[in-house]
C-alpha cells in the first residue's frame, strides 16, 4: 500500500516538475514552443516504452468515437497555458487554479451528462473552491 500511495503522490510531484520544466523552457522560448517540446519529447518517450512493453494497438482503438482522438490538441493548449501562467503568477497559484478549474468543470460536465451524485457535496465543494479563488485573487490584487 505504501508503494501505491508513493506512486500517487509521486504522480502529483511529476505533474509539478513537468510544469516547472516547461515553464523554464517557455521563459527562454515561448509557451507554444514549450508545449511543442513537451509533446514531441513525451511522444518519443511513450513510443520507446510502447515498443519495449508492446501491446500498443491491443483492443479495438479504431472503434472509439472520433472526438476521443482530440486529447492531443486539448493537451497542447493545456501545456501552453500552464507554461504561460506559471511565469506570471507562480507555481502554487497556477497549480491551485488549475485544480479549481478541473474540479468545477468536472462537476458541470457530470451534471450535463446526467451522472448521479450528491448535489449538496458538489455545491459545497464548488462554493469552497470559489471562496479559495476569491481569497487568492484579492490577495494579489492588493499587493
Amino acid at each position, binding site marked *: 500500500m505504501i508503494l501505491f500511495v508513493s506512486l500517487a503522490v509521486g504522480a502529483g510531484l511529476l505533474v509539478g516538475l513537468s510544469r516547472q520544466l516547461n515553464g523554464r523552457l517557455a521563459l*527562454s522560448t515561448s509557451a507554444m514552443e514549450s508545449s511543442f517540446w513537451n509533446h514531441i519529447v513525451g511522444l518519443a518517450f511513450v513510443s520507446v516504452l510502447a515498443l519495449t512493453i508492446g501491446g500498443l494497438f491491443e483492443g479495438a482503438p479504431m472503434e472509439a468515437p472520433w472526438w476521443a482522438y482530440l486529447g492531443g490538441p486539448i493537451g497542447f493548449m493545456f501545456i501552453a497555458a500552464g507554461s504561460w501562467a506559471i511565469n506570471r503568477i507562480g507555481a502554487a497559484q497556477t497549480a491551485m487554479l488549475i485544480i479549481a*478549474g478541473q474540479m468545477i468543470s468536472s462537476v458541470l460536465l457530470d451534471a450535463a451528462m446526467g451522472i448521479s451524485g450528491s448535489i449538496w457535496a458538489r455545491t459545497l465543494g464548488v462554493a469552497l473552491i470559489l471562496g479559495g479563488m476569491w481569497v487568492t485573487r484579492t490577495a494579489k490584487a492588493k499587493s
Partner: protein
Amino acid sequence: MTEKPEPRLIHFLGAFGAGCLITLMLLTNGTLAQYGSLMFSSWVPHLTGTALALVILLVLRPARTSPKRPPLWAYLGGVSGGLTVIATSAAMNSALALSGTIALGLAGQIVFSLFADARGLFGLPQRMPKWRDFAGLGLIVAGALVIIFFGGAV
C-alpha cells in the same frame, strides 16, 4: 527573470481555463482507453498534440523571448509527463482507486509547487507564498476533497 509581470485577472483565468481543459482531456483519453490499451490512450494524444504544435509553430512562428539557449534539462518536461501517466495508472488500479489517486496527486502537486515557488526551482521566479495563499489553497483543497469523496464526481 528580470522583472516579475504583475499578476492580472487574465493570468488567473488562463490557469483556471487550463484546469477545465483537463476535464475534457480525461474524457477524450479515458474514452480512448475504453477501446484501446492504456498505452494507446497516452500515445495518441502525444502524437496528435505534436502534429498540431508543429502546424502552429510553422504558421505563427512565435519569437523566442531570449537569445540565450535554454538548458537541455528544460526540454525534459515531456518525460516527466509520460512518467505521470504510468504512476497514475498503477496507483489507480490499487485499493486507492481513482478518487484516492487524484486526491494524493493533488497533495503531491501542491507540495511541489509551494516548494518550487519558495526556492525558485529550475530558474523560475522565486516567490514566498503569503498566508492568504495558504488560506486560498486550504479552501480549494477542501472543496476538491469534498467533490472527490462525496460528490460522486471525477
